[in-house]
Every structure is written in structure tokens, then in C-alpha cells.
């Protein structure tokens, strides 16, 4: 059967770039002076400046990872860690400068806000330029703001949670993040409050040879619930850009949090992001993750199930095309009795792209009667691509149920033959099978988020094949 050539995803809707029109751009590189300058520019309180300086020391001590994709092309001396756009924080799109507003218009954010979101935050380069939330949520005590405002206005809440879930010395890029972080969102959902409509933050990196280091801190108190959506994109430049964000999630007892991410960075981006959730008693933490863009991605969200009966679910898909190396996965630590995790990961590699699924499931001595089930499937769309599965399963007690399954392969000729014998063209049959493969993930993505995600799925899976 003739091989169907799959073209690279058409990224035109994300690849437009705006002039690098900044208000302030820090000089490239990473030194104590630069970190102090960022701290000064951002008017940090003393405790935050100390965290930054301590993190820089940790960064200098830690080694690059000895595993995973080759990061040798990353040279911190070429990266500007802070770029302030020519805009202050606004709560009306009309006040956002025209070129920045146009960017978010083209990404469909204001439109989505009107139709289906309870709150929106939009970050351009290093600063958040727009933030708003529906009145009724404010009345219920929900806080949704940018991190800088949170540091100023809710210092106790931030201080007791900032870099506590993800310790500064977790790995080199977390330390880097803590030293130069800027922007990001802060969400606080008080006890018992259920936020029915999702909140969304969108991160856009426009400036070339720069880094984005946003910090997302979400606290969902006992019995509360929230759906948070994060979207990221950037135009393509010839030089490397770096994204080293950090997401800290605190899910209280009986609380529920769904965290959906669509990462569609451009293909010059190194995406070295860290995400971690601490889960209380009978809480529920759901991750939905789509990883499409970036040149190199190392992203392993993590749930730590500390409360009895806590549950977590991870549903993720990676799609690696030409020149991409997506090393993604999930980590879970069962640290209390009766905890459960369900992991469902899929990957598609094409055009010489490399997908790696790397994971950890650890069931500790403290977690009897826990259950974990892992399933990962990889689809190879041609014979020049690479797909690896590297899962670690660490079971330290006996009264558990653990199972792991992984499959790797191509589109079944039999299935194509069957569909073709029913009158469907070969291209349509292949597209149908690939869509079916991705369906368990795409159905988990919020329909309201159609603006960006559906475009992507269609472009990649429908338009791309044939």
C-alpha cells in the first residue's frame, strides 16, 4: 500500500509575529545582577527577592539532567529572562495596546471569554496584560489575578504556598524559574465554592531569544471545585526561546480540580515546564494535556496523593513532527491508603519526530489498598520517526493493584482495508483511524475551548493526512 505522506501541521494561525515592541528588556544572560534587577523592576518584597537569590545559587549548583533530550543548544547567555511589554495590566480589552490585543484576537481569546469562560488572564512576554473575572465569582470570594498582584495583595497566602509544592531544588530549571519568574496566574477558590465555568490563562511569547517563566499557583480549598485552562503559543524565530514555567496546585480535602493544557509553542521553543499537584483527602485531580508544539519538550506533570482516598487521572496526547523531540509523561506518588490513579497517554510521531513517554508510578508503604492503572499507546506514522516508552513502576507495598500496559505500532492495514471495502478512501480511512486514536483525549478537552484546540486537532489529524 502506498505510503501516505503527512505534511507538517499548518501553524499559520500561531506563527504570525508582532514587532518586538517592548517597554523594557533585560540584558541577556543570568547573573546575580540580572536577578536583582528583575526583582527591582518587579518591586518584589524582601522575602521574594531572597527566594530569587537563593534559587540562583541552587541553579548554579545543579547539573543539567543526565537523561532525556539533548539540551546543549540552550545557552542562558543568549536568553533574555525578562521582557516587559508596553502595556500595564488591564481589565478591559479596549485598554490593551492594539498590537497585543490583535494577537489575542487572532488567537480567539476575547471571543472565547464572551462565550464560555468565567475569567481570563492573558500574558504577553513576561507580564500579564489582561485579567478579568465575572462579578458573581468575586462575590463568592474567588480570587483570580496575576501573580504580581497576588504577591502584593495576598502575601500570606502566596508566601505559605509559593515554591512549597515544587521545591526550588527539584531540578535545575525549577531553580531557574524561581530566580527569574514573572507573570502567571493566582487562583484561590474558598471552601465549598464550585466554579462551574472554566477560568483560562493564555501565555504568548512574542519576543525573540527570550524566556517565559510564568508561575501559576492555584489553591482549591476543601469541598471546592475548579476547571482551569492554560494555553500557550509563540511565533517561530530562528533562535532558541525558552519556556520554564512552574505550576503549583493545592487540592484540598474533597476538592476537585481539572487542569487542562494545550501547549502549542513554536518549533524553536525549549519547553521545560514543571507542574505538580498536592492532593488532600478524597480529592480529585484531573490533568488533560495536549502537547503539540516546541522543539524540545520535557514535561512530566505530577500528582502527590497525600490524602486518604485521593484520586488522580491523567489524559494526555503528544504529537511530534519534523525536528521535534517531545519527552512527556506523568508522575504519581501514592502516599495514603485507598488512593487511585488512572493514566492514559497517547503519542503520535511523524516526519522524523520523536515522542518519548517517560513516567513514574510510586506506591509507597503508606498506601495500602491503592490502585493504579497505566495505559500508553504510541502510533508511528512513518518509518523515519521514533517512539520510546520509558515507564518506571515502583511498588513498595503488597496490598495494591497495579497494572501497566503499553503498545506501539502503526495504523493497521487490516483496519484500513476494512474501511476502504466500505467505500471510504484510503486518506479518509487513515484520518478516521488517527482521529479515533486521539478521541479519548480530544473528548476530554473542553468543548468551550474549541477556539484553539479544535483547530489544532483538525489541522493535525484531518488536513494533515492525505
Amino acid at each position, binding site marked *: 500500500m502506498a505510503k501516505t505522506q503527512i505534511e507538517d501541521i499548518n501553524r499559520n494561525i500561531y506563527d504570525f509575529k508582532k514587532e518586538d515592541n517592548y517597554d523594557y528588556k533585560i540584558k541577556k544572560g543570568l547573573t546575580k545582577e540580572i536577578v536583582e534587577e528583575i526583582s527591582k523592576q518587579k518591586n518584589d518584597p524582601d522575602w521574594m527577592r531572597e527566594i530569587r537569590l537563593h534559587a540562583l545559587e541552587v541553579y548554579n549548583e545543579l547539573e543539567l539532567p543526565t537523561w532525556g533530550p539533548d539540551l546543549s543548544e540552550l545557552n542562558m547567555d543568549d536568553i533574555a529572562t525578562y521582557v516587559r511589554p508596553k502595556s500595564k495590566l488591564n481589565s478591559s480589552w479596549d485598554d490593551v495596546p492594539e498590537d497585543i490585543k490583535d494577537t489575542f484576537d487572532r488567537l480567539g481569546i476575547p471571543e472565547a471569554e464572551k462565550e464560555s469562560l468565567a475569567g481570563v488572564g492573558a500574558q504577553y512576554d513576561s507580564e500579564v496584560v489582561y485579567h478579568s473575572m465575572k462579578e458573581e465569582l468575586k462575590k463568592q470570594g474567588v480570587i483570580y489575578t496575576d501573580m504580581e498582584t497576588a504577591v502584593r495583595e495576598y502575601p500570606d497566602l502566596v508566601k505559605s504556598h509559593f515554591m512549597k509544592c515544587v521545591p526550588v531544588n527539584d531540578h535545575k530549571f525549577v531553580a531557574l524559574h524561581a530566580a527569574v519568574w514573572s507573570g502567571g496566574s493566582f487562583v484561590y477558590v474558598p471552601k465549598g465554592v464550585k466554579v462551574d465555568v472554566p477560568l483560562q490563562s493564555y501565555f504568548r511569547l512574542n519576543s525573540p531569544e527570550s524566556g517565559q517563566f510564568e508561575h501559576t499557583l492555584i489553591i482549591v480549598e476543601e469541598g471546592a471545585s475548579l476547571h482551569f485552562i492554560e494555553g500557550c503559543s509563540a511565533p517561530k524565530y530562528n533562535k532558541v526561546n525558552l519556556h520554564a514555567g512552574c505550576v503549583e496546585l493545592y487540592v484540598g480535602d474533597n476538592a476537585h480540580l481539572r487542569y487542562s493544557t494545550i501547549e502549542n509553542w513554536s518549533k524553536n521553543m525549549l519547553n521545560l515546564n514543571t507542574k505538580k499537584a498536592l492532593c488532600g483527602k478524597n480529592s480529585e485531580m484531573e490533568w488533560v494535556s495536549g502537547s503539540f508544539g516546541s522543539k524540545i519538550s520535557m514535561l512530566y506533570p505530577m500528582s502527590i496523593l497525600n490524602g486518604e482516598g485521593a484520586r488522580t487521572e491523567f489524559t494526555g496526547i503528544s504529537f511530534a513532527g519534523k525536528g521535534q523531540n517531545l519527552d512527556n509523561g506523568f508522575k504519581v506518588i501514592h502516599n495514603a491508603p485507598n488512593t487511585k490513579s488512572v493514566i492514559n497517554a497517547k503519542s503520535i510521531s511523524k516526519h522524523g519526530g520523536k515522542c518519548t513517554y517517560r513516567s513514574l508510578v510510586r506506591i509507597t508503604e503508606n498506601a495500602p489498598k491503592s490502585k493504579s492503572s497505566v495505559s500508553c499507546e504510541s502510533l508511528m506514522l512513518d518509518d523515519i520517526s521514533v517512539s520510546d516508552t*520509558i515507564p*518506571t513502576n515502583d*511498588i513498595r507495598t503488597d496490598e495494591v493493584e497495579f497494572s501497566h500496559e503499553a503498545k506501539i505500532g502503526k495504523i493497521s492495514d487490516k483496519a484500513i482495508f476494512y474501511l476502504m471495502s466500505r467505500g471510504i478512501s484510503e486518506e479518509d480511512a487513515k484520518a478516521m483511524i488517527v482521529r479515533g486514536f486521539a478521541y479519548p483525549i480530544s473528548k476530554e478537552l473542553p468543548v468551550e475551548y474549541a477556539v484553539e484546540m479544535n483547530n489544532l486537532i483538525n489541522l493535525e489529524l484531518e488536513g494533515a493526512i492525505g
Partner: protein
Amino acid sequence: MILNETPVRTSKNFNSNNIELKNFEVPQENNGFLNRNIYINSEKKIMIVAESQEDSERLNDLYEDNKVLVTEITKSDFKLKYGVGQENNPNQFIRVLAKEGATGVAINLEFTFDEENTNLQDAIEIYAEKDTDLDVTISYVPNEEFGEYSYHNGVIKLTALENANVNITVVNLLNNSSDNLISFENKLLDNAKLNYTIIDFGGKNSITNYYTDLFGKNSDNRVNSIYLGNNNQLFDLNYIAHCHGEKSNINIEVQGALKDEAIKHFKGTIDFKKGCKKAVGNENENCLLLSDKAKSLALPMLLCSEEDVEGNHSSSSGKAGQKELFYLMSRGLTEKDAMKLLVRAKFNTILEGITKNDVKELVSNAIDSKL
């Protein structure tokens, strides 16, 4: 000492890239190992002794009529550093050659540890020429009542030429105060078939490295392995299979049970190399935990650079079924006996693969005494 490194590294925090043995020392004294026997088709034979490796090749010409030639080479200056990473300076060097077309050959190599023979560093080379049919059983067993420390570091290297059909069983029943390091290295050409059965019960530390290269078209390797740990035994198993040949087939089945504070690390890698079209690789690892202090770590990897292949792996850990236990106990069995029966049932399909009945019985008794 760091041993058994995986072909691809993962995060250091996962503790699965290698095994670090603390307080591990290679015994300095190496007085040779004399307590070994060889049987060919159940008949006890004296090995043909060659002075050197070249000698053994010369002997090959002398024994033209024989189907098989087993040579013990007394002098060799060669040092091996195989998969486990620990250098082996052989005090036993045995070469088994099955000549082209030889069929129905069964060889049994027995190494018995006792007060006099505590340090075995063996290199066994098995060479199966075209169209051969060979069955080899190798056992490492302590003499009854021998409970002292013994050290075993062995290498078993197999080359199977076109259409060779080889069946190998390796039994490790060393006592729990010993160290067992063993590496396997296989090379399979077109249509060669290899069945490996590995029974891994002994040693305070038992480190296994299994490496197989499926070069040939239609080459086929099945590995069935069981481990059974009690007290504070540590098993570190590193299985690596490279599929190069079209339609090559690898099947790794590892079944085990852990009692007391035993620990097992299983690392299994199936690597589909470019060009191995229609290759199939399956890997299944299952660990029965018989105590809340036992620990099971598994890293089942699939690496794939070829589209037209089929790779599956599955791994599971858990307690013995409570329902099954209850059923057996309601039929009058004690909990201990019921448990034994369940473990035995789990191992049974693999035990059936052992061709020699006395070895089968030996393993069976070992299961009873360990549980």
C-alpha cells in the same frame, strides 16, 4: 559498585537506571573451581581439555565425527566485561560446539558449590552451527548443608547460526548468603530459534543481565524467567533485546514472587531497530507480593525506530488473590499451603519448560523450602 545499567537513562530520582551494591567486594582468593560435571545425553563425560583457546579450535578438527564437542580450556588470558559491568576473570572456560546438522543433543553442566569450591567465574560459549537442535541445562547449586558465602560471576554466550534450534535452561539455587552475577549474550541469525528458561532463586544479591541480538530474519527468542525472593534478597534483572532482522520475534515473560523484605528490580528493554519490519516484541512482567515489606520496581521499556512493528509490554504487581486463597482454605488447606499452591500455579507454565526431570524436581523442592 554500580552494575546493570539500562541502555537509556531516565530521571535519577526514579532509582531505576542501575543498581548500586554497597559493601560488595569481589573475593580476592581464586583457587579455581573443580566441582563440575558434564553429561552428554545423560552420559557422564570427561571434558576434553585444551591448553588454550586455539587448541580447542584445533581439537574441533580432530573430532570431526562427533555431533558435539565440549572443551574445557585451562589457559586463557581473556577477561570479560559483560552486561552486569563486573569484570570476570574466568576460572572455568567451557566451549560447547554443536556441529552442522547435529540433532537430539542434550548437554547438562553442573556446578556444585561446597567448602572447597566457593568462587566460580565461568565463561561458557555455546556455538550452534546450521540446522542443529541442541538442549543445554546449566545448574549452579550448593551442596546440601553448605551455607557459607560463595561467589558466582558467569557469562553464557550463545551464537545460533541459520535454522539452529537451541533450548537453554539455567538454574541458580545458590544459598542466600552468596552473590550471583550472571550475564547472557545471544546472537541469532536467520531462522534461529532460542528458548531460554532462567530460574533465579539464589543469592543475597542476584544480578542478571540478559542481552540478545536478533540479527536474522525470522529469528525468534523466547525468554521465560522466574524469580522467588525471601528474607532480604535483592534481584536486579536487566533484559535487553535488539530486533534487527525482519520478522524477528522476542518474547520476554518474567514471573516472580517476593516474600519478607525481598526486593526486585526488573528492567526490560525491547529495541526495534530501523529495518526490522514486521518484528514483534512482547514483554510481560508480573510480581506477586507476599509481604507488605517486599518491594517491586519495574522499568519495561519499548524503544522504536521502525514503523512496521508490533510492540507490547505489560507489567503488574499485587497481592495473591484473596478469593482464591479463601477457596483453597475452605477446601481444608492451611494458608501457607494455599499460598504455596498459588505461587506454584503461577510458575507452572515456565517450570514445564525445563526439559530435565531431576532439575525440575530440584526447583520444585526449592520453591517449597523458600515458601
